[in-house]
Structure formats: C-alpha cells, structure tokens
C-alpha cells in the first residue's frame, strides 16, 4: 500500500495518464474537463514526459488527430465532456470501426440545451452505440486506476477498440481526495509501449479507413460487435492483473450488501458512494436493501448483472440521463430489454435523477427506496421535478 496524498481527481487522472508512456495527446478544453487538459499541458511543457501535445482547435479535431496518431502507431489520448463529446460523435464510431485503441476521459456533464455545465450522464448516453468500451468511475482512485488500465484493455490484440473512462464532472473531477498513484516503474511493468497491429509507415504501406460496399458492411458490423462483446473477457483479466499488482480489485459489476436484499438499487458513477451510505442507513434500520454498481456500461455485462440481481424482487435503476420520447432512462431500458426473455426477473423501477448537476443526497436515495415500495406501475420517475 503506497503513500496517499490529497489530489484533485482531474489532476490525478492526468498524472495517471502521464505514467502510461503516451505518445500523443490532443486536447481541447471544456468545463469541467479543463483541469485534465491543463495539467497534461503542465506535465508535457515541463518535460516530465516525452509526448506530443496537440492543442487542437476543436474536439472534432481532437479525436481526429488521435485517430491519425493512433493509425500511425502512437498511444493516443484525449479528454472531453458534454458538447465536446457531442462534437466528436461523428468520429467515435469511425475510430472503433478502424480498431484504433484511443483512450479518452469523459468528464460527464449535461448536454445543451439549455446550456448546463454540471454533472449528469446525458453526454455519454448518445455515444452508447459507437462501439467504444465504456467504463464508469466512482471515486478518484478508480479514475487513476481505470485510466491506466484503459490503455492495456484497448490495446490488447484481442480487443483493439477505443475506451472511454467516465468521471463525473465537478462531482468527481473537482473533488480532492486522498489518492495513491502507482510508481512509473510499476506502471511500465504493467503497461509496455504500444505494439500496434498495423501502422502507417512507408516501411510497410497499407491503406486504412477504406470504404465498404453493401456486400461487406454487415460483416464489419458483426466483427466490431463481436470484438466489443469479447472485450469483457480481457477487461476482467486486466482487472485481475491489477488486483495482483496493486491490491485493488475491480469488477465489471460491483455489489454492495446485496445479500438477502429484496430491493436493490443500481447506479453508475459517483452517485454510487452516496447511495451506499443510504443503503447503510436503511440496513441499520432493518430494511433489506442493497446496491449494484455498474462499472462497465459497454459492452453490457449481462451475466454479471443477472447474477447480482437474481435474488431481489425489485430493482431500482438510477439513470442520470433520459432517452427523450422513449422508454425512459437508457440504463433501465437496456436492462429491461436484456431481462425480457427471462422467466423470472425483478420488478424494475426506473428513476431518472440528478440531471444538470442537481445534487443527490443520502435522503434522496432513501426516498427512492420508499417510493419503490409505494409505486404501483412501472412508468419511469423523473425524480424531484417540480410540477
């Protein structure tokens, strides 16, 4: 167990990436990601790491530059949030289709309109079909650990897919926590320099990003889908290796006091910590409740989730985003779909809350558990909306 020092999570994330022997970072600032971009700039301008820092002129160019860099064999990194991620939207599925293992931090922030710089998951949800591996962090240590692991996962020859690590904007990025950074030597042992499957260089001229006719496109979809689904195996393997080396164990689905619970709540991201406190309070009062925390969003960890919820009667699925005009929150919608064919499944209650940075307190989570008891139908709840 190494030394822990107080660090702002965004700064720590940048420090973690700096340990990863990146070759190119292309970043464009946006609140609340900017501290990651700025600290990355500090590190590179001070010569602490040998990497090219491209201060691009937009997020679209950030991800495009990363695509070019990754195609040329570099370990490439970027970070963004909200509107920036939306601007990258066009390129995200291209990067995953081209099998470029770019790693990105996303400081979750609400999407305009109206303009809102505070935390929710409305920015990452529209990207769920993009073919990226998508991980969520709950605290600063996870932000450090997952940032480093993301490179190893993405670059694995059986994966070769880009990976985004979600860090709740302000709620997590701007928190100061006692954090432990692994040493450079430890990270170097865990993460060797990138060995690309293919790269752009005249020593072996290849063409990348060729177009596909209708006779081939479907097969490329299957190939990408299969790669993404299979990546869960490698993610689990990397988590185990991390546990061996650094003593911190991660799972694609985390469970907290789920044993014997008849009602479970599912969260993603930093709200999990607050929800856990609510669970503790309610357990003290004798309520049989527990918490499931989805760490891996894409590929969706179907077996692990089903195993976590198999004993409960009610599952409250917390969404920090809405699929407007659809079936409610994206996470609840996915879970309902995946459970549709099962003979036994819990009653699922979708609660959409914490939008646009609206704070979620322990009392709110307790209230949600109470509401779950009373609610008769299965329509989604837009928690806290003033009507």
């Amino acid at each position, binding site marked *: 167990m190494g030394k822990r020092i107080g660090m702002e999570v965004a700064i720590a994330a940048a420090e973690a990436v700096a340990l990863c022997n990146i*070759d*190119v970072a*292309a970043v464009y600032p946006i609140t609340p990601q900017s501290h990651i971009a700025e600290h990355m700039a500090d590190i590179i301008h001070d010569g602490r790491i*040998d*990497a*090219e820092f*491209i*201060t*691009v*002129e*937009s997020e*679209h*160019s*950030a991800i*495009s*530059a*990363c*695509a*070019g*860099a*990754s*195609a*040329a*064999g*570099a370990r*490439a990194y970027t970070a963004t949030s909200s509107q920036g991620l939306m601007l990258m939207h*066009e*390129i995200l599925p*291209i990067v995953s289709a*081209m099998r470029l293992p770019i790693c990105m931090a996303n400081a979750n922030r609400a999407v305009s309109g109206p303009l809102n710089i505070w935390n929710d998951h409305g920015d990452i949800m529209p990207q769920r079909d993009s073919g990226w591996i998508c991980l969520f962090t709950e605290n600063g240590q996870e932000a450090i650990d997952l940032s480093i692991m993301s490179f190893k996962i993405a670059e694995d020859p059986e994966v070769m897919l880009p990976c985004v690590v979600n860090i709740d904007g302000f709620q997590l990025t701007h928190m100061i926590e006692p954090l432990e950074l692994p040493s450079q030597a430890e990270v170097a042992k865990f993460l060797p*320099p990138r060995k690309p499957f293919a790269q*752009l*260089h*005249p*020593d*072996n*001229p*290849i*063409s*990348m*990003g*060729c*177009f*596909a*006719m209708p006779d*081939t496109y479907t097969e490329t979809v299957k190939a990408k889908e299969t790669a993404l689904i299979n990546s869960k195996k490698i993610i689990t393997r990397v988590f185990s290796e991390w546990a061996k080396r650094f003593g911190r164990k991660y799972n694609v689905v985390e469970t907290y006091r789920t044993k014997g619970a008849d009602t479970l709540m599912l969260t993603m991201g930093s709200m999990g910590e607050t929800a856990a406190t609510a669970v503790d309070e309610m357990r003290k009062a004798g309520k049989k409740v527990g918490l499931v925390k989805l760490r891996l969003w894409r590929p969706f960890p179907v077996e692990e989730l089903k195993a976590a919820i198999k004993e409960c009667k009610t599952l409250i699925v917390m969404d920090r985003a809405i699929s407007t005009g659809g079936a409610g929150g994206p996470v609840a919608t996915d879970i309902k779909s995946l459970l549709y064919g099962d003979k036994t499944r819990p009653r699922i209650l979708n609660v959409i809350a914490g939008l646009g940075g609206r704070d979620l307190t322990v009392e709110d989570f307790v209230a949600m558990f109470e509401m779950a008891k009373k609610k008769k139908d299965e329509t989604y709840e837009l928690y806290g909306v003033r009507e």
Partner: protein
Amino acid sequence: MNSVQNFEIFAPKLIDRKEYISAGHRACQGCGEVLALRHILKALGDDVVVANATGCMEIISSGYPQTAWEVPYVHVAFENAAAVGSGVEAALKALRRKGRIADRDVKTIAVAGDGGTADIGLQALSGAMERGHDMIFFCLDNEAYMNTGIQRSSATPFMAATTTSPAGKAIPGQRTQKKNVPEIMVAHKVPYVATACPSYPIDLINKVKKAKEVKGPAYVHVFSMCPTGWRCASEITIKMGRLAVETGVFPLYEVENGKYRLTMEVPGKLRPVGDYLKPQGRFRHLGPSDIEKVQAQVIREWEILLNKVECMQPW
C-alpha cells in the same frame, strides 16, 4: 519560368518512373485530379503518409478490399484531413524520437478536395497550419463537390452551374466569387503557399518538392480539371488547365515567406476568358454581358496579384 510552349522535351524523362497510384483506380475518364495526385506523389517519393478526406480521390482509390495506393494511406472523414494529418505528423515525430520507428524523414501530407478544404475542412486546415505541423496540405480543387454529384462549394467560380447552384431562370448559377484559400494560407503565415496545375507538370512537381523541403506547414492549391463536372470533353482536360492559366482564371504563383512570385510567363495580355468558358457546359448559359463581367473580375484579380508580386516583401 516556362509555360508549356517552352517545355523542355527531355524533362518528362526526368520524372520519377514509379507509380504511387496504381492503374485500376475508378476515376472518371480524363480526370485531372487523379493526374495531379499522380504527379504530387511522384514528387514526394516513398517516404510519405497520406491523410485523405472523403471525396473523389478517396472513393476512386480505396474501396475495400482493394487500394490503389502504394504509399501508407488513411481516410477518416470529410472535414478532418488536416486534423488527422496533424495526428499522424505528431505520432511520427514522437515515435521516431522514442526509437520505435526508423530514424529517417517521413513527410505527412493531407489531401482534400475543395469542399474538404474551403468549406467543411476549413477549420481543421486553419488549426493545423496555425499549429505549424510539418505537413503539406494539398487542396485538389475541381471547383465543386464532385464526388457527391456536382454540388457547389465555396470554390465554385462565379456563375458556374452546379446542381445546387443551377443555371435557373431567376438565378443563373453560382452567385458568389471563388473563395481565395491560398490568400487565407498566406494570412496564416504558412511559409510556402503555391498554386499549381497538372497541365504544367514540371511546375507542379517543382512546387511539391519545394513544399517538401519546408520544415513546417506548406499549402499547395492544385487546379483539378473535371470533365465530368464541368461538362466538357474528356480529351481536352489538359487544354482546359492551360486555358485557365493563360486566361488568368487560375494564375500560377508561389508565396515564400510572404514574397509573391509568378511561376508562369503570360506573353502580352491575358487570353480572353471566353476561350476558357466556352468549352465548358457549366458556363453554357453565360451571355456576352455575363462573360464581360467574368472578364472584368479576372482582370481585377490578376492586377491585384501582380501588385502583390511587385510590392509584398518577405515577412
């Protein structure tokens, strides 16, 4: 400074004989753009990496499972050739420094059409040039979005008919003047900016070689004759390029660190612009007064350029 009339007969024999774009590509018959690309690559040689925007050149050359490219090539999207190129350039720099690739110069080039340069690609181009990447950006200008069926771009010349600026009863073709991207590049203080035309292959090759020598950004705007989109016979492709230069519609010049220099000698007066407009179906609807308007504008632009050649000093 020779125009094609004084062309050295032996010069073609000095051109690199290797082909970097294989035959079998799907360009239209008589495509001036792929011809330009052919000579650009001959001027650069093997040690390049090409970042190409979506467009004619990308579609005719890189349909899976085949590629016409004999050099490393990447295509990502339409508006980001310069951004992708920036990333490639940075990667090659970093990897070479870290000893993960061979220790020799490899030039990054970005290739885009007029749409991918002057319209949707302008932001990325501006950013890349401002950041000073060691990269040549080639605009292959066929004066419309040809790949998608001849829609107008900001590089479409005044009064040209395209499918989105048709020669209609109320509005006769393109309403605006051609956007001057080389000037925008000079304003970015790009150390080497040039215009070129494949009808003048030695001039084109020399300019590309000059651009290659720059340790930093360079921009070459290449006139790309398009018989399909301009509605003219495929065999006069080269002639159309010559006429564009001789009438002053597309002057050949270069700007080195701010100093302008014509690389063409135009004997006496400019040729009347009607000679250039008449063989092209996209200008078919122009009457005599329209041609006069175009002529006046060409002369005006030419004089402005001559002024710059005379007055502008290096930065």
